[in-house]
Protein backbone atom coordinates (compact mmCIF):
# COMPACT_ATOMS: atom_id res chain seq x y z
CA UNK A 1 0.00 0.00 0.00
CA UNK A 2 1.45 3.37 -1.00
CA UNK A 3 1.82 6.38 1.23
CA UNK A 4 -0.68 8.24 -0.94
CA UNK A 5 -3.28 5.54 -0.42
CA UNK A 6 -2.79 5.64 3.35
CA UNK A 7 -3.16 9.43 3.34
CA UNK A 8 -6.36 8.89 1.35
CA UNK A 9 -7.66 6.51 4.02
CA UNK A 10 -6.75 9.02 6.74
CA UNK A 11 -8.42 11.90 4.85
CA UNK A 12 -11.66 9.96 4.34
CA UNK A 13 -11.60 9.07 8.01
CA UNK A 14 -11.21 12.70 9.10
CA UNK A 15 -13.97 13.82 6.74
CA UNK A 16 -16.23 11.09 8.12
CA UNK A 17 -15.52 12.25 11.67
CA UNK A 18 -16.22 15.86 10.69
CA UNK A 19 -19.46 14.82 8.97
CA UNK A 20 -20.62 13.18 12.20
CA UNK A 21 -20.31 16.55 13.91
CA UNK A 22 -20.86 19.31 11.33
CA UNK A 23 -21.53 22.04 13.88
CA UNK A 24 -17.93 23.39 14.00
CA UNK A 25 -17.91 23.83 10.20
CA UNK A 26 -21.31 25.53 10.30
CA UNK A 27 -20.18 27.86 13.08
CA UNK A 28 -17.01 28.65 11.12
CA UNK A 29 -19.17 30.07 8.32
CA UNK A 30 -22.27 31.33 10.14
CA UNK A 31 -20.47 33.15 12.94
CA UNK A 32 -18.77 35.78 10.72
CA UNK A 33 -21.91 36.24 8.64
CA UNK A 34 -23.92 37.06 11.74
CA UNK A 35 -21.27 39.38 13.17
CA UNK A 36 -20.78 41.12 9.83
CA UNK A 37 -24.45 42.05 9.78
CA UNK A 38 -24.27 44.22 12.86
CA UNK A 39 -20.63 45.34 12.70
CA UNK A 40 -20.64 46.70 9.14
CA UNK A 41 -22.15 50.14 9.99
CA UNK A 42 -19.65 50.62 12.81
CA UNK A 43 -16.67 50.24 10.48
CA UNK A 44 -17.78 52.72 7.82
CA UNK A 45 -16.83 55.90 9.76
CA UNK A 46 -13.40 54.55 10.56
CA UNK A 47 -12.71 53.78 6.90
CA UNK A 48 -14.03 57.15 5.74
CA UNK A 49 -11.86 58.85 8.32
CA UNK A 50 -8.89 56.92 6.97
CA UNK A 51 -9.49 58.41 3.51
CA UNK A 52 -11.69 55.74 1.89
CA UNK A 53 -14.63 58.07 1.34
CA UNK A 54 -16.72 55.60 -0.68
CA UNK A 55 -16.26 52.71 1.72
CA UNK A 56 -19.34 50.91 2.99
CA UNK A 57 -17.66 49.24 5.93
CA UNK A 58 -17.80 45.83 4.21
CA UNK A 59 -14.21 46.33 3.03
CA UNK A 60 -13.06 45.98 6.63
CA UNK A 61 -15.75 43.88 8.25
CA UNK A 62 -15.84 41.05 5.67
CA UNK A 63 -12.11 40.18 5.68
CA UNK A 64 -11.88 41.11 9.38
CA UNK A 65 -14.62 38.74 10.51
CA UNK A 66 -13.51 36.04 8.07
CA UNK A 67 -9.97 36.30 9.46
CA UNK A 68 -11.20 36.27 13.06
CA UNK A 69 -13.41 33.23 12.61
CA UNK A 70 -10.76 31.44 10.55
CA UNK A 71 -8.87 31.21 13.82
CA UNK A 72 -11.44 28.61 14.92
CA UNK A 73 -9.49 26.23 12.72
CA UNK A 74 -6.55 26.44 15.15
CA UNK A 75 -8.85 25.04 17.78
CA UNK A 76 -10.21 22.41 15.38
CA UNK A 77 -6.70 21.24 14.53
CA UNK A 78 -5.79 20.78 18.20
CA UNK A 79 -9.12 19.04 18.73
CA UNK A 80 -8.31 16.65 15.89
CA UNK A 81 -5.21 15.46 17.72
CA UNK A 82 -6.45 15.56 21.28
CA UNK A 83 -9.61 13.63 20.38
CA UNK A 84 -7.35 10.69 19.65
CA UNK A 85 -6.21 10.81 23.27
CA UNK A 86 -9.78 11.21 24.49
CA UNK A 87 -10.88 8.13 22.55
CA UNK A 88 -7.63 6.27 23.37
CA UNK A 89 -7.09 5.68 19.66
CA UNK A 90 -3.73 7.43 19.43
CA UNK A 91 -1.68 4.32 20.19
CA UNK A 92 -3.77 2.32 17.72
CA UNK A 93 -3.04 4.90 15.05
CA UNK A 94 0.66 4.87 15.89
CA UNK A 95 0.71 1.08 15.77
CA UNK A 96 -0.78 1.15 12.28
CA UNK A 97 1.30 1.40 9.14
CA UNK A 98 0.66 5.14 8.84
CA UNK A 99 3.79 7.23 9.37
CA UNK A 100 3.86 10.28 11.63
CA UNK A 101 3.94 12.53 8.57
CA UNK A 102 0.93 10.79 7.03
CA UNK A 103 -1.04 11.10 10.26
CA UNK A 104 -0.30 14.84 10.53
CA UNK A 105 -1.10 15.38 6.86
CA UNK A 106 -4.35 13.44 7.23
CA UNK A 107 -5.40 15.73 10.05
CA UNK A 108 -4.14 19.01 8.57
CA UNK A 109 -5.39 18.82 4.98
CA UNK A 110 -9.16 18.59 5.59
CA UNK A 111 -8.96 21.52 8.01
CA UNK A 112 -6.94 23.54 5.54
CA UNK A 113 -9.59 22.93 2.88
CA UNK A 114 -12.29 23.79 5.40
CA UNK A 115 -10.82 27.20 6.23
CA UNK A 116 -10.12 28.07 2.58
CA UNK A 117 -13.73 27.22 1.73
CA UNK A 118 -14.84 29.34 4.66
CA UNK A 119 -13.00 32.34 3.21
CA UNK A 120 -14.54 31.73 -0.23
CA UNK A 121 -18.07 31.50 1.17
CA UNK A 122 -17.67 34.57 3.42
CA UNK A 123 -16.22 36.70 0.63
CA UNK A 124 -18.94 35.56 -1.79
CA UNK A 125 -21.57 36.33 0.83
CA UNK A 126 -19.90 39.69 1.51
CA UNK A 127 -20.04 40.60 -2.17
CA UNK A 128 -23.64 39.49 -2.63
CA UNK A 129 -25.20 40.71 0.59
CA UNK A 130 -22.91 43.38 2.03
CA UNK A 131 -21.90 45.06 -1.23
CA UNK A 132 -18.24 44.25 -0.80
CA UNK A 133 -16.34 45.72 -3.73
CA UNK A 134 -12.79 44.55 -4.37
CA UNK A 135 -10.94 47.48 -5.97
CA UNK A 136 -7.96 45.39 -7.01
CA UNK A 137 -7.49 41.93 -8.51
CA UNK A 138 -9.77 39.57 -6.56
CA UNK A 139 -7.83 36.52 -7.77
CA UNK A 140 -4.80 37.93 -5.93
CA UNK A 141 -6.63 37.17 -2.69
CA UNK A 142 -6.34 33.44 -3.27
CA UNK A 143 -2.61 33.00 -2.46
CA UNK A 144 -3.09 35.26 0.55
CA UNK A 145 -5.99 33.16 1.81
CA UNK A 146 -4.08 29.94 1.13
CA UNK A 147 -0.92 30.95 2.96
CA UNK A 148 -2.84 32.47 5.88
CA UNK A 149 -4.94 29.30 6.20
CA UNK A 150 -1.79 27.17 6.08
CA UNK A 151 -0.29 29.38 8.78
CA UNK A 152 -3.30 28.83 11.05
CA UNK A 153 -3.24 25.06 10.53
CA UNK A 154 0.51 24.99 11.25
CA UNK A 155 -0.11 27.11 14.36
CA UNK A 156 -2.69 24.54 15.49
CA UNK A 157 -0.18 21.72 15.09
CA UNK A 158 2.50 23.72 16.94
CA UNK A 159 0.09 24.40 19.82
CA UNK A 160 -0.75 20.69 19.91
CA UNK A 161 2.96 19.92 20.09
CA UNK A 162 3.60 22.36 22.91
CA UNK A 163 0.54 21.72 25.11
CA UNK A 164 0.27 18.56 27.20
CA UNK A 165 -3.49 18.81 27.71
CA UNK A 166 -6.51 19.52 25.52
CA UNK A 167 -7.63 22.29 27.88
CA UNK A 168 -4.31 24.11 27.54
CA UNK A 169 -4.41 23.82 23.76
CA UNK A 170 -7.97 25.13 23.67
CA UNK A 171 -7.07 28.07 25.91
CA UNK A 172 -4.11 28.95 23.66
CA UNK A 173 -6.29 28.77 20.54
CA UNK A 174 -8.97 31.04 22.00
CA UNK A 175 -6.50 33.56 23.42
CA UNK A 176 -4.69 33.55 20.08
CA UNK A 177 -7.90 34.20 18.19
CA UNK A 178 -9.00 37.15 20.32
CA UNK A 179 -5.56 38.67 20.95
CA UNK A 180 -4.26 38.29 17.41
CA UNK A 181 -7.61 39.40 16.03
CA UNK A 182 -7.62 42.55 18.11
CA UNK A 183 -3.97 43.51 17.69
CA UNK A 184 -3.86 42.47 14.04
CA UNK A 185 -6.71 44.76 13.03
CA UNK A 186 -9.37 42.15 12.32
CA UNK A 187 -11.58 42.86 15.30
CA UNK A 188 -11.31 46.65 15.10
CA UNK A 189 -9.79 48.87 12.39
CA UNK A 190 -6.01 48.96 12.68
CA UNK A 191 -5.96 52.77 12.67
CA UNK A 192 -7.95 53.07 15.90
CA UNK A 193 -5.53 50.84 17.83
CA UNK A 194 -3.19 52.46 20.39
CA UNK A 195 0.41 53.06 19.33
CA UNK A 196 1.82 50.21 21.41
CA UNK A 197 -0.61 47.73 19.82
CA UNK A 198 0.26 48.93 16.33
CA UNK A 199 3.94 48.55 17.17
CA UNK A 200 3.62 44.87 18.05
CA UNK A 201 0.93 44.01 15.49
CA UNK A 202 3.43 42.72 12.86
CA UNK A 203 4.22 39.72 15.06
CA UNK A 204 0.70 38.41 14.44
CA UNK A 205 -0.38 36.57 11.28
CA UNK A 206 -3.66 38.46 11.45
CA UNK A 207 -1.89 41.77 10.83
CA UNK A 208 -0.28 40.51 7.62
CA UNK A 209 -3.48 38.91 6.41
CA UNK A 210 -5.47 42.10 7.04
CA UNK A 211 -2.75 44.22 5.48
CA UNK A 212 -2.90 42.04 2.38
CA UNK A 213 -6.69 42.21 2.21
CA UNK A 214 -6.61 46.00 2.59
CA UNK A 215 -4.00 46.30 -0.16
CA UNK A 216 -6.20 44.48 -2.66
CA UNK A 217 -9.70 45.40 -1.49
CA UNK A 218 -9.25 49.08 -0.57
CA UNK A 219 -6.05 50.16 -2.31
CA UNK A 220 -6.87 48.37 -5.57
CA UNK A 221 -3.54 46.58 -5.86
CA UNK A 222 -2.80 43.23 -7.47
CA UNK A 223 -0.74 40.17 -6.60
CA UNK A 224 2.57 42.03 -6.89
CA UNK A 225 1.71 44.18 -3.89
CA UNK A 226 1.05 41.07 -1.78
CA UNK A 227 4.63 39.80 -1.92
CA UNK A 228 5.55 41.01 1.55
CA UNK A 229 2.41 39.84 3.41
CA UNK A 230 2.52 36.45 1.66
CA UNK A 231 6.24 36.05 2.34
CA UNK A 232 5.87 36.92 6.04
CA UNK A 233 2.90 34.58 6.43
CA UNK A 234 4.87 31.84 4.68
CA UNK A 235 7.76 32.43 7.08
CA UNK A 236 5.38 32.22 10.03
CA UNK A 237 3.97 28.96 8.62
CA UNK A 238 7.46 27.50 8.34
CA UNK A 239 8.29 28.65 11.89
CA UNK A 240 5.19 26.92 13.27
CA UNK A 241 5.98 23.81 11.22
CA UNK A 242 9.54 23.73 12.59
CA UNK A 243 8.25 24.10 16.16
CA UNK A 244 5.83 21.23 15.47
CA UNK A 245 8.60 19.15 13.92
CA UNK A 246 10.87 19.64 16.93
CA UNK A 247 8.29 19.36 19.69
CA UNK A 248 5.61 16.99 18.39
CA UNK A 249 6.54 13.71 20.04
CA UNK A 250 4.21 10.93 19.05
CA UNK A 251 4.99 8.97 22.21
CA UNK A 252 4.23 11.90 24.53
CA UNK A 253 1.51 11.24 27.07
CA UNK A 254 -1.05 13.92 26.42
CA UNK A 255 -4.39 14.35 28.13
CA UNK A 256 -7.50 14.61 25.99
CA UNK A 257 -10.88 15.93 27.01
CA UNK A 258 -11.96 14.36 30.30
Amino acid sequence: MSSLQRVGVLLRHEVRLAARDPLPAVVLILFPIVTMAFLEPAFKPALVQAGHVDASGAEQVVPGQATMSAFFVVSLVTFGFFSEYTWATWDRLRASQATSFEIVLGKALPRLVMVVLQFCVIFAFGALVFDLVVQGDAVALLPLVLVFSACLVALGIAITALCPTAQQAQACAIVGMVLFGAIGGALVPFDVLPDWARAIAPVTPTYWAMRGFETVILDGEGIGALALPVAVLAAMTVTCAVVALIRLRFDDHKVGWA
Partner: protein
Amino acid sequence: MSAPTLSVVGVHKAYGGIVALAGVDLTVEPGTIVGLLGPNGAGKTTLVSIVAGLRRPDAGSVHVGGIDVTREPRRAQRAIGLAPQETGVYLPLSVRDNLSFFAGLAGLRRGARLARIEETAAALGLTALLHRRAGELSGGERRRLHAAIALVHQPALVLLDEPTVGADVQTRTEILELVRGVAAAGSAVVYSTHYLHEIEELDADIAFIDRGRIVARGALSELLGVHGTSALELTFTGPVPGAVLGPDAVVLGRTVRIPTGDPAHGAAQVLTRLGDASSTLESIEIVRPSLEAVFLSVTGREYAEDAA
Protein backbone atom coordinates in the same frame (compact mmCIF):
# COMPACT_ATOMS: atom_id res chain seq x y z
CA MET B 1 13.51 -23.38 9.38
CA SER B 2 11.33 -20.26 9.21
CA ALA B 3 11.69 -17.41 11.72
CA PRO B 4 9.36 -17.39 14.71
CA THR B 5 6.50 -14.91 14.50
CA LEU B 6 7.90 -13.04 17.48
CA SER B 7 11.43 -13.05 18.79
CA VAL B 8 12.33 -10.84 21.76
CA VAL B 9 15.97 -10.98 22.85
CA GLY B 10 17.49 -9.26 25.89
CA VAL B 11 15.06 -6.35 25.97
CA HIS B 12 15.72 -3.73 28.62
CA LYS B 13 13.61 -0.65 29.32
CA ALA B 14 13.77 1.88 32.13
CA TYR B 15 11.76 5.02 32.82
CA GLY B 16 14.10 7.37 34.62
CA GLY B 17 15.55 5.24 37.38
CA ILE B 18 12.69 2.73 37.34
CA VAL B 19 13.47 -0.49 35.53
CA ALA B 20 10.42 -1.78 33.66
CA LEU B 21 12.09 -4.59 31.73
CA ALA B 22 15.37 -6.16 32.79
CA GLY B 23 16.43 -8.45 29.96
CA VAL B 24 13.34 -10.12 28.55
CA ASP B 25 13.62 -13.01 26.10
CA LEU B 26 10.49 -14.39 24.47
CA THR B 27 9.78 -16.43 21.37
CA VAL B 28 6.33 -17.06 19.97
CA GLU B 29 5.73 -19.50 17.12
CA PRO B 30 2.88 -19.29 14.59
CA GLY B 31 -0.42 -20.74 15.79
CA THR B 32 0.44 -20.55 19.47
CA ILE B 33 -1.02 -18.52 22.31
CA VAL B 34 1.38 -17.21 24.91
CA GLY B 35 -0.21 -15.95 28.07
CA LEU B 36 1.89 -13.09 29.39
CA LEU B 37 1.08 -13.31 33.05
CA GLY B 38 2.08 -11.09 35.87
CA PRO B 39 0.85 -8.70 38.52
CA ASN B 40 0.33 -5.00 37.92
CA GLY B 41 3.61 -3.21 37.21
CA ALA B 42 5.35 -6.43 36.20
CA GLY B 43 6.22 -5.00 32.77
CA LYS B 44 3.53 -6.60 30.60
CA THR B 45 2.26 -3.39 28.99
CA THR B 46 5.78 -2.06 28.43
CA LEU B 47 6.73 -5.29 26.68
CA VAL B 48 3.59 -5.24 24.51
CA SER B 49 4.23 -1.57 23.62
CA ILE B 50 7.81 -2.30 22.59
CA VAL B 51 6.74 -5.28 20.47
CA ALA B 52 4.07 -3.09 18.82
CA GLY B 53 6.72 -0.47 17.99
CA LEU B 54 5.18 2.17 20.26
CA ARG B 55 8.25 2.40 22.48
CA ARG B 56 11.91 1.82 21.79
CA PRO B 57 13.83 -0.58 24.01
CA ASP B 58 16.96 0.72 25.74
CA ALA B 59 18.70 -2.49 24.73
CA GLY B 60 17.89 -5.77 23.05
CA SER B 61 16.00 -6.59 19.88
CA VAL B 62 12.47 -7.40 18.78
CA HIS B 63 11.75 -9.16 15.49
CA VAL B 64 8.29 -9.81 14.09
CA GLY B 65 8.29 -12.29 11.22
CA GLY B 66 12.03 -11.73 10.96
CA ILE B 67 11.67 -7.93 10.66
CA ASP B 68 13.41 -5.73 13.22
CA VAL B 69 10.65 -3.67 14.87
CA THR B 70 13.05 -0.94 15.99
CA ARG B 71 14.65 -0.46 12.57
CA GLU B 72 11.64 -1.05 10.33
CA PRO B 73 8.59 -0.40 12.48
CA ARG B 74 6.19 0.22 9.57
CA ARG B 75 7.09 -3.03 7.84
CA ALA B 76 6.82 -4.97 11.07
CA GLN B 77 3.53 -3.32 11.98
CA ARG B 78 1.93 -4.81 8.87
CA ALA B 79 2.05 -8.12 10.68
CA ILE B 80 0.80 -6.83 14.05
CA GLY B 81 -2.71 -6.42 15.42
CA LEU B 82 -2.75 -4.52 18.69
CA ALA B 83 -5.51 -4.14 21.25
CA PRO B 84 -4.03 -1.85 23.91
CA GLN B 85 -5.14 -2.05 27.51
CA GLU B 86 -7.43 0.97 27.32
CA THR B 87 -10.46 0.63 25.06
CA GLY B 88 -9.65 2.63 21.93
CA VAL B 89 -12.47 3.18 19.44
CA TYR B 90 -13.80 6.20 17.54
CA LEU B 91 -16.94 6.95 19.51
CA PRO B 92 -18.67 9.12 16.86
CA LEU B 93 -18.23 6.48 14.14
CA SER B 94 -20.20 3.31 13.55
CA VAL B 95 -18.80 -0.11 14.34
CA ARG B 96 -18.41 -0.68 10.58
CA ASP B 97 -16.55 2.61 10.07
CA ASN B 98 -14.19 1.82 12.95
CA LEU B 99 -13.35 -1.57 11.48
CA SER B 100 -13.17 -0.22 7.94
CA PHE B 101 -10.71 2.53 8.89
CA PHE B 102 -8.17 0.23 10.49
CA ALA B 103 -8.62 -2.43 7.80
CA GLY B 104 -8.03 0.29 5.20
CA LEU B 105 -4.90 1.51 6.96
CA ALA B 106 -3.62 -2.05 6.97
CA GLY B 107 -3.95 -2.09 3.20
CA LEU B 108 -7.06 -4.24 2.72
CA ARG B 109 -8.79 -3.46 -0.57
CA ARG B 110 -12.51 -2.81 -0.66
CA GLY B 111 -13.65 -6.37 -1.36
CA ALA B 112 -11.36 -8.01 1.18
CA ARG B 113 -12.13 -5.26 3.67
CA LEU B 114 -15.88 -5.77 3.51
CA ALA B 115 -15.50 -9.53 3.82
CA ARG B 116 -13.18 -9.26 6.82
CA ILE B 117 -15.46 -6.77 8.55
CA GLU B 118 -18.36 -9.21 8.23
CA GLU B 119 -16.25 -12.16 9.42
CA THR B 120 -14.73 -10.36 12.38
CA ALA B 121 -18.04 -8.84 13.42
CA ALA B 122 -19.70 -12.26 13.27
CA ALA B 123 -16.95 -13.82 15.36
CA LEU B 124 -17.43 -11.23 18.09
CA GLY B 125 -21.22 -10.96 17.97
CA LEU B 126 -21.13 -7.49 16.45
CA THR B 127 -23.02 -8.15 13.20
CA ALA B 128 -26.28 -6.64 14.43
CA LEU B 129 -24.36 -3.62 15.73
CA LEU B 130 -22.37 -2.76 12.60
CA HIS B 131 -24.41 0.37 11.93
CA ARG B 132 -24.49 1.53 15.53
CA ARG B 133 -22.17 4.29 16.70
CA ALA B 134 -19.43 3.09 19.01
CA GLY B 135 -20.50 5.74 21.52
CA GLU B 136 -23.90 4.06 21.79
CA LEU B 137 -22.48 0.62 22.58
CA SER B 138 -22.44 -0.91 26.03
CA GLY B 139 -19.08 -1.34 27.77
CA GLY B 140 -18.90 -5.00 26.79
CA GLU B 141 -19.83 -4.34 23.16
CA ARG B 142 -17.23 -1.59 22.97
CA ARG B 143 -14.64 -3.99 24.36
CA ARG B 144 -15.53 -6.49 21.64
CA LEU B 145 -15.13 -3.81 18.97
CA HIS B 146 -11.78 -2.92 20.54
CA ALA B 147 -10.63 -6.53 20.13
CA ALA B 148 -12.14 -6.78 16.64
CA ILE B 149 -10.07 -3.82 15.40
CA ALA B 150 -6.89 -5.72 16.31
CA LEU B 151 -7.99 -8.74 14.33
CA VAL B 152 -9.76 -7.33 11.30
CA HIS B 153 -6.69 -7.42 9.03
CA GLN B 154 -5.73 -10.99 10.02
CA PRO B 155 -2.30 -10.12 11.45
CA ALA B 156 0.36 -12.76 11.91
CA LEU B 157 0.94 -11.52 15.45
CA VAL B 158 -1.94 -10.48 17.71
CA LEU B 159 -1.11 -8.48 20.83
CA LEU B 160 -3.97 -8.36 23.31
CA ASP B 161 -3.18 -6.34 26.43
CA GLU B 162 -5.63 -7.24 29.17
CA PRO B 163 -8.45 -7.72 26.64
CA THR B 164 -11.11 -8.78 29.14
CA VAL B 165 -10.68 -6.01 31.71
CA GLY B 166 -14.13 -4.62 32.46
CA ALA B 167 -15.78 -7.13 30.12
CA ASP B 168 -19.00 -8.95 30.99
CA VAL B 169 -19.15 -12.75 31.04
CA GLN B 170 -20.47 -13.04 27.47
CA THR B 171 -17.80 -10.70 26.09
CA ARG B 172 -15.08 -12.51 27.96
CA THR B 173 -16.26 -15.89 26.67
CA GLU B 174 -16.41 -14.59 23.09
CA ILE B 175 -12.97 -13.01 23.30
CA LEU B 176 -11.40 -16.20 24.66
CA GLU B 177 -13.14 -18.25 21.96
CA LEU B 178 -11.95 -15.86 19.28
CA VAL B 179 -8.37 -15.99 20.57
CA ARG B 180 -8.44 -19.78 20.26
CA GLY B 181 -9.83 -19.44 16.74
CA VAL B 182 -7.21 -16.89 15.71
CA ALA B 183 -4.42 -19.16 16.90
CA ALA B 184 -5.99 -22.16 15.20
CA ALA B 185 -5.95 -20.15 11.96
CA GLY B 186 -2.20 -19.75 12.28
CA SER B 187 -1.64 -16.40 14.01
CA ALA B 188 0.60 -16.10 17.03
CA VAL B 189 -1.14 -14.52 20.00
CA VAL B 190 0.42 -12.75 22.96
CA TYR B 191 -2.31 -12.51 25.54
CA SER B 192 -1.37 -10.28 28.45
CA THR B 193 -3.46 -10.68 31.57
CA HIS B 194 -3.31 -10.83 35.32
CA TYR B 195 -6.24 -13.27 35.46
CA LEU B 196 -4.62 -16.69 35.88
CA HIS B 197 -7.82 -18.63 35.22
CA GLU B 198 -8.10 -17.14 31.70
CA ILE B 199 -4.79 -18.66 30.77
CA GLU B 200 -5.90 -21.98 32.24
CA GLU B 201 -9.06 -21.76 30.12
CA LEU B 202 -7.06 -20.94 26.98
CA ASP B 203 -4.58 -23.71 27.79
CA ALA B 204 -1.96 -21.28 26.56
CA ASP B 205 1.77 -21.48 26.85
CA ILE B 206 2.78 -19.28 29.73
CA ALA B 207 5.35 -16.58 30.26
CA PHE B 208 5.30 -15.39 33.87
CA ILE B 209 6.68 -11.88 34.06
CA ASP B 210 7.63 -10.33 37.35
CA ARG B 211 9.61 -7.18 38.05
CA GLY B 212 10.63 -6.89 34.41
CA ARG B 213 11.86 -10.46 33.96
CA ILE B 214 10.35 -13.63 32.54
CA VAL B 215 10.58 -15.82 35.63
CA ALA B 216 8.93 -18.94 34.23
CA ARG B 217 8.13 -20.05 30.70
CA GLY B 218 6.50 -23.18 29.33
CA ALA B 219 3.31 -25.07 28.68
CA LEU B 220 0.73 -24.99 31.44
CA SER B 221 1.18 -28.72 32.19
CA GLU B 222 4.98 -28.38 32.27
CA LEU B 223 4.92 -25.48 34.73
CA LEU B 224 2.40 -27.20 36.95
CA GLY B 225 4.50 -30.34 36.87
CA VAL B 226 7.72 -28.55 37.79
CA HIS B 227 6.52 -25.85 40.16
CA GLY B 228 3.01 -26.77 41.26
CA THR B 229 2.40 -28.79 44.38
CA SER B 230 -0.88 -30.37 45.45
CA ALA B 231 -2.16 -29.64 48.91
CA LEU B 232 -4.67 -30.94 51.42
CA GLU B 233 -7.09 -28.41 52.80
CA LEU B 234 -8.72 -29.41 56.08
CA THR B 235 -11.48 -27.39 57.73
CA PHE B 236 -12.43 -27.99 61.36
CA THR B 237 -15.48 -27.07 63.44
CA GLY B 238 -13.15 -25.51 66.00
CA PRO B 239 -9.45 -24.54 66.25
CA VAL B 240 -7.01 -26.45 64.05
CA PRO B 241 -5.59 -29.38 66.15
CA GLY B 242 -1.87 -29.21 66.75
CA ALA B 243 -1.48 -32.81 65.58
CA VAL B 244 -1.76 -31.81 61.91
CA LEU B 245 0.56 -28.85 62.05
CA GLY B 246 3.84 -29.41 60.26
CA PRO B 247 6.57 -27.04 59.06
CA ASP B 248 4.80 -26.33 55.71
CA ALA B 249 1.26 -26.09 57.04
CA VAL B 250 -0.50 -22.74 56.60
CA VAL B 251 -3.36 -21.99 59.00
CA LEU B 252 -6.14 -19.64 58.04
CA GLY B 253 -8.73 -19.51 60.82
CA ARG B 254 -10.34 -22.96 61.09
CA THR B 255 -8.66 -24.16 57.91
CA VAL B 256 -5.19 -25.56 57.41
CA ARG B 257 -3.44 -26.11 54.05
CA ILE B 258 -0.77 -28.81 53.94
CA PRO B 259 1.35 -29.15 50.77
CA THR B 260 1.91 -32.73 49.61
CA GLY B 261 3.32 -34.44 46.57
CA ASP B 262 1.03 -37.44 47.03
CA PRO B 263 -2.44 -36.26 48.12
CA ALA B 264 -3.97 -39.74 48.67
CA HIS B 265 -1.11 -40.95 50.87
CA GLY B 266 -0.91 -37.59 52.62
CA ALA B 267 -4.63 -37.65 53.48
CA ALA B 268 -4.32 -41.08 55.05
CA GLN B 269 -1.35 -39.94 57.13
CA VAL B 270 -3.09 -36.80 58.35
CA LEU B 271 -6.23 -38.70 59.38
CA THR B 272 -4.08 -41.16 61.32
CA ARG B 273 -2.27 -38.29 63.07
CA LEU B 274 -5.55 -36.63 63.96
CA GLY B 275 -6.79 -39.60 65.99
CA ASP B 276 -9.65 -38.52 68.29
CA ALA B 277 -9.37 -34.94 67.02
CA SER B 278 -10.86 -36.16 63.71
CA SER B 279 -14.30 -35.69 65.28
CA THR B 280 -13.84 -31.92 64.78
CA LEU B 281 -12.93 -32.36 61.09
CA GLU B 282 -15.62 -30.71 58.99
CA SER B 283 -14.19 -31.31 55.50
CA ILE B 284 -11.04 -32.40 53.68
CA GLU B 285 -10.23 -31.33 50.14
CA ILE B 286 -7.43 -32.07 47.70
CA VAL B 287 -6.28 -28.84 46.11
CA ARG B 288 -4.69 -29.47 42.72
CA PRO B 289 -1.64 -27.44 41.66
CA SER B 290 -2.50 -24.08 40.15
CA LEU B 291 -0.78 -21.17 38.46
CA GLU B 292 -0.89 -19.34 41.79
CA ALA B 293 1.29 -22.12 43.19
CA VAL B 294 3.66 -21.80 40.22
CA PHE B 295 3.96 -18.05 40.78
CA LEU B 296 4.56 -18.60 44.49
CA SER B 297 7.20 -21.17 43.69
CA VAL B 298 9.16 -19.05 41.21
CA THR B 299 8.88 -15.66 42.95
CA GLY B 300 8.48 -16.60 46.61
CA ARG B 301 5.46 -14.28 46.77
CA GLU B 302 1.70 -14.84 46.74
CA TYR B 303 0.03 -13.92 43.45
CA ALA B 304 -2.36 -11.05 44.25
CA GLU B 305 -4.85 -11.06 41.37
CA ASP B 306 -7.08 -8.47 43.00
CA ALA B 307 -4.21 -6.09 43.50
CA ALA B 308 -3.09 -6.53 39.93
